[in-house]
C-alpha cells in the first residue's frame, strides 16, 4: 500500500461523488438539463468517449486472450488476466455510460426481444451484451479462486468454465471482431454528414484494426500503471514485444486508411489547410504515424519511457479518432456548436474513476496479476483513530478518507448543478413596436417602400442588417429615381407569426389608400375575429399574423392551476364551458382601454397594440358604453358586455367562420349606430 495509491483512490472517490450528484439531476430533469446535446448534435461525449472509445480501449481483452490462449505465446500470460478484467470493466463502463445517454434507459433490454437484423446498432448491442457475458465468464475463474468460494458448487462451476474456456476465448474474439468493426459501420449510413477524410466504405475495417493496435497499447499502459501505483514488476521484454506488435498493426491501419483515401482520390483533401485537414493530420500523426515509427526502433521500445510515450500517444490519438468520427468531424448545421458541459465530462470521468476503483478492488483481493503473489491488502487502520464518530456504521467509519472524499465531491458539485431543472426558453418573439421609418416614395401608385430610419436597438442583428442594409444599398447605388423623396414616418413593426421575420406596417398609409375612416372594417372586420391565425395573406402574400388569441393553458398557469378554474367558471353547479365563463373584459377591461388602437404609445419603443387589442379597441368600448346604458341591475339583457355576444359559442369552429357581415348587422342596429360612427380609429 503506497501513498500514491491512497492519493489516487481519494481522488477517484471524490470524482465518483461528483458523478453521484450529476446522476440525480440527469435522471430527474433529462438530458437537456445537463448536456449540450441538441437535435443538431444528437450524439456527444457519452457516445464519443464512453461508448466508442470505451469499447476500443477494452480491445486489449480479446487481443491478449487470443495471443495467449490461441497463439500460445505463454510469455504474455502475466498480462492476460488484467487485460480481461480491464475489458470486463471497460464494457461494464460502456453499459453504464449508455444508461446515462439513452433517453429511456430502462428500455435498454428492448433490442434483445425485438430483433432488427438490419440495424448496425442492433448488432453492436447484441455483441456487446454477449461479449460482456463472455468476459464475465472468462473472468469468473479468477473470482472463484478467492478463498470465499472454496465450496464444492463453486469449484464445479470453475471446472466447467475451464473446460469451455477456449470456446469462450474464441467467442470473445468473434464477438469483438464483429462489434469493434460495427462501431465503424454505424457511420456507413451517414455519408453526407461525416467528413470525407473520416468517412470510408471500409470504415469498419479501420475501426477493427485500430482497435487491435489500441488494445495492445492499452495493455502496455496498464502494466505501467500497475507498476507505478501498485509497485508491480515491469516485464520490459514482453512490453516491448507488445509495442512492436502494436507498431506493426498501426502500419497496417495507416496503409489501409491512407490507401483507401488515395484510391478514392481524397488524399489531397488532407493538405487543404482547413481545420478538418489539420485535425486529420494531427490525429493520424498522434494516433498512428509517430508511435508506429517509434516502435520500429528497438532502442526506443525497449525503454519504459519510449514505449510508454508511444502507448499514451496511441491511446490518446485513437480516442481522438473515435471522437472525431462521432462528434467533431460529424457535420452540424452552420452556427450550431457542441461542446460538452462540465456535467458530461463529470459523468465520463466519474464512470472511469469508478471502473478504476473496482479494478483496484479486484487487484487487491484477487490474483489478477498472475506473477504477483496476492497483493498486500490495504492495512486496516485503527477505527478509533480515524472514524468521525464511533457510532457510525462500520463501512462509513472505516476508510474515512474515501467517504469524506466521496461526500465532498458530491456536495461540491451541487452548487454548479441546475437543481431546479432547466426551463426551455419560449421562442423569442418581437412584440409589435412603433419605430421610425424612412419612406422611399417613388411617387407612383405603388405602395410606399419603407426602410428603417436607424438601426433600432434590441433588434436581432441579422434583421437589423436586412432592414438597414437594404436602405443603405439602394441609397448608395444611386438607383433612386430622381423624384424620390426621403421622409420619415412612424410605423408598426410586426412579427406577425412570431418567427423573427419582421414587417414594417404603415397603418396611416393603409388607411389613406383604402378610404380613411371607412376603411377600418376592410381589414379589421374582413379578417376572422378570434381566429387562431389572422390571415393577413388574404391581402398580402408576404405578411403574416399567427397568434393564439385566447390561450387557456396560459390562463390556467397564470391564475394557478387547479385553483384557477372557478375564477372564470364561476357558477359552481354549471358545466364548465365557454358559455358559462365570466367575460373577458371583467378581467381585462383596463388593459383593453390602455392598449386601444386609437391611442398608440408615444414612446419610441412603446408597445403597439396587437390585433386582438385593435379589434377590441374598435368594438368593446362601444359595447360597454351601450351595455351600461341599457342595463339595469343584474345581467345585461342584450348580453352586450359578454364576449359570447359577438364570439359564438363554439369558439374553435364558429368563430373561425364568423362573417364580416355580422359587424354590419350591428352597425345597422340603431342602438349601436351612434357610438360606432363617432369613433375614429387610426393613428
Amino acid at each position, binding site marked *: 500500500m503506497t501513498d500514491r495509491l491512497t492519493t489516487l483512490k481519494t481522488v477517484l472517490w471524490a470524482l465518483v461523488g461528483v458523478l453521484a450528484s450529476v446522476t440525480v439531476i440527469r435522471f430527474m430533469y*433529462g*438530458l*437537456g438539463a445537463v448536456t*449540450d*446535446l*441538441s*437535435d*443538431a*448534435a*444528437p*450524439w456527444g461525449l457519452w457516445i464519443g468517449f464512453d461508448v466508442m472509445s470505451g469499447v476500443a480501449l477494452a480491445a486489449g481483452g480479446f487481443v491478449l486472450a*487470443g495471443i495467449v*490462449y*490461441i497463439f*500460445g505465446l*505463454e510469455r504474455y500470460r502475466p498480462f492476460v488476466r488484467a487485460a480481461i478484467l480491464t475489458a470486463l470493466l471497460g464494457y461494464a463502463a460502456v453499459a453504464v455510460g449508455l444508461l446515462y445517454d439513452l*433517453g*429511456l*434507459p430502462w*428500455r435498454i433490454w*428492448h*433490442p434483445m426481444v*425485438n430483433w*432488427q437484423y*438490419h*440495424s448496425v*446498432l442492433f448488432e453492436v448491442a447484441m455483441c456487446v451484451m454477449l461479449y460482456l457475458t463472455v468476459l464475465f465468464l472468462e473472468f469468473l475463474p479468477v473470482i472463484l479462486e478467492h478463498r470465499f468460494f472454496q465450496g464444492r458448487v463453486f469449484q464445479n462451476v470453475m*471446472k466447467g468454465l*475451464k473446460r469451455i474456456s*477456449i470456446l469462450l*476465448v*474464441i*467467442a470473445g*474474439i*468473434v464477438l469483438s471482431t*464483429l462489434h469493434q468493426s*460495427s462501431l465503424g*459501420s*454505424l457511420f*456507413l*449510413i*451517414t455519408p453526407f*454528414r461525416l467528413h470525407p477524410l473520416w468517412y470510408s*466504405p471500409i470504415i469498419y475495417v479501420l475501426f477493427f484494426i485500430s482497435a487491435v493496435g489500441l488494445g495492445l497499447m492499452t495493455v502496455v499502459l496498464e502494466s505501467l500503471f500497475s507498476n507505478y501505483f501498485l509497485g508491480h514488476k515491469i516485464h520490459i521484454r514482453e512490453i516491448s514485444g507488445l509495442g512492436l506488435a502494436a507498431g506493426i498493426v498501426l502500419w497496417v491501419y495507416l496503409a489501409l486508411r491512407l490507401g483507401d483515401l488515395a484510391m478514392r482520390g481524397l488524399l489531397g483533401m488532407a493538405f487543404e489547410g482547413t481545420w478538418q485537414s489539420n485535425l486529420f493530420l494531427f490525429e493520424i500523426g498522434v494516433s498512428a504515424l509517430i508511435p508506429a515509427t517509434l516502435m520500429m526502433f528497438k532502442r526506443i521500445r525497449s525503454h519504459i519511457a519510449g514505449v510508454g510515450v508511444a502507448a499514451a500517444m496511441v491511446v490518446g490519438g485513437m480516442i481522438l479518432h473515435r471522437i472525431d468520427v462521432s462528434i467533431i468531424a460529424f457535420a452540424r*448545421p452552420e*452556427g*450550431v456548436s*457542441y461542446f460538452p458541459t462540465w456535467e458530461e465530462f463529470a459523468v465520463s470521468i466519474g464512470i472511469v474513476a469508478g471502473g478504476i476503483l473496482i479494478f483496484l478492488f479486484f487487484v487487491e483481493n484477487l490474483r489478477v496479476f498472475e506473477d504477483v*503473489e496476492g497483493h498486500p491488502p490495504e492495512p486496516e487502520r485503527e477505527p478509533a483513530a480515524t472514524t468521525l464518530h464511533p457510532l457510525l456504521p462500520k463501512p462509513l467509519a472505516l476508510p474515512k478518507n474515501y467517504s469524506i472524499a466521496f461526500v465532498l465531491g458530491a456536495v461540491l458539485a451541487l452548487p454548479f448543478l441546475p437543481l431546479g431543472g*432547466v*426551463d*426551455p*426558453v*419560449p*421562442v423569442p418573439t418581437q412584440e409589435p413596436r412603433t419605430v421610425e421609418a424612412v419612406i422611399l416614395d417613388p411617387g407612383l401608385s405603388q405602395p410606399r417602400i419603407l426602410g428603417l430610419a436607424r438601426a433600432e436597438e434590441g433588434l436581432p442583428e441579422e434583421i437589423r442588417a436586412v432592414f438597414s442594409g437594404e436602405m443603405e444599398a439602394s441609397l448608395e447605388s444611386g438607383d433612386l429615381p430622381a423624384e424620390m423623396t426621403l421622409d420619415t414616418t412612424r410605423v408598426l413593426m410586426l412579427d406577425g407569426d412570431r*418567427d423573427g421575420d419582421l414587417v414594417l406596417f404603415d397603418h396611416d398609409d393603409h388607411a389613406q389608400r383604402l378610404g380613411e375612416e371607412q376603411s377600418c372594417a376592410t381589414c379589421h372586420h374582413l379578417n376572422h375575429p378570434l381566429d*387562431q391565425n389572422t390571415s393577413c395573406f388574404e391581402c398580402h*402574400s408576404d405578411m*403574416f399574423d399567427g397568434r*393564439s388569441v385566447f390561450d387557456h393553458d396560459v390562463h390556467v398557469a397564470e391564475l394557478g392551476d387547479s385553483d384557477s378554474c372557478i375564477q372564470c367558471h364561476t357558477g359552481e353547479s354549471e358545466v364548465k364551458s365557454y358559455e358559462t365563463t365570466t367575460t373577458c373584459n371583467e378581467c381585462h377591461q383596463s388593459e383593453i382601454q390602455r392598449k386601444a388602437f386609437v391611442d398608440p404609445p408615444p414612446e419610441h419603443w412603446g408597445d403597439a397594440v396587437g390585433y386582438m387589442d385593435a379589434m377590441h379597441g374598435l368594438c368593446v368600448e362601444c359595447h360597454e358604453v351601450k351595455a351600461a346604458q341599457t342595463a339595469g341591475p343584474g345581467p345585461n339583457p342584450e348580453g352586450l358586455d359578454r364576449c359570447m355576444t359577438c364570439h359564438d359559442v363554439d369558439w374553435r369552429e364558429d368563430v373561425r367562420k364568423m362573417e364580416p357581415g355580422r359587424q354590419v348587422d350591428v352597425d345597422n342596429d340603431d342602438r349601436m349606430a351612434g357610438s360606432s360612427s363617432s369613433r375614429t380609429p387610426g393613428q
Partner: protein
Amino acid sequence: MSAAILIDITRCIGCEECVLACKEENDLGPDRLRKGQEAVDGLSATRFSTILRKPDDHFVRQQCRHCLEPACVSACLVGAMQKTPEGAVVYDSELCMGCRYCLVACPYGIPRYEWDEAAPLVRKCHLCHHRVVEGREPACVESCPEDALLFGERDQLLAEAHRRIADNPDTYVNHVYGETEVGGTSVLYLSDISLGFLGWAENLGEGDLPHLTWASLKKVPGVIVGMGGLMGAIYWVVNRRMKMAARAADGGAGMDVAAPMDGAGSPETAATDAEATASTTESQESGDDDD
C-alpha cells in the same frame, strides 16, 4: 397504394397555415426551444413542419420526407421507426429506447428529440397516418389555401409533377425533388429554385442509404464462421505443435508449458487429443490453485 405529398414551391405563399394545422392536429402546444433546436430549419419537437424563407419570396416547406427506403428505419435497433404500407414513416414511442441513432442517420436531419423531458421521445411528422388510414388527407394538405400541397398516390403525383414541368418548362427546375433521392421519397417537391439546402448534401444521389449499412452487415455470418474457424484452426495447430514439442523434449516435464485449455474449439480435434489436453489442463490448473 403508397400515399405521398407533392409540394409545389411556386404556389406556396408562406402563410404557415399548414404549420398551424399540423400543430393543432398533433396537439403540439407552444414552441419552446433550447439552443440548437431551431437552428437547423425551424423544426423542433413541437413543430413537425415549418416554412423556410428563401430570397425572392420563395417559401420552402420543411418536413419528414417519408423515404421509400428510410435510413431511420434501417438504423433503429428496436423497430420503433417503421415504414407503413400506406407510405408514412411512423414512430412507436412504446418501443423506442432513446438511442437517437435515427437523428444521426437521417440524410435530411428531420427527427427531433424532447431534450427537456425526463422520459423523452423522438418527434417528427408521421404524414398524419391516423388520418390517412381513415381515408382523409393530412391536416397540412387540407389547410393549404393555395393548393401548394397535393396529397395522393405517389405515382399519380409524380405524373402530375412531370406534367406541370412539361407545361411550364421555363418556370420549374426540371427535377422532381424526391423522385430518386436516396432511393426516392414520399414527399415530393416541385420548385423554381434549387432545393439542395434541404438535405445534408447538395446532391444526395440516387442510392438508398440502408444498402451502405448492408454492405457491412451481410459480412457478419462470414466473419463469425471465418474468424471462429480461423481461431479454432490456429489453436488446434499451435496446441498440437506444443504437445509434440513437449513430448519430444521429455515426457511429462514439458507438459507444463502446454496451453491449459480444452481442445473443443476445433471440431477437427481428435477426441483422444481433447481428452489428453483436458487432463493436463486440470492437473496444471489444480496445481495453480494451491498457492
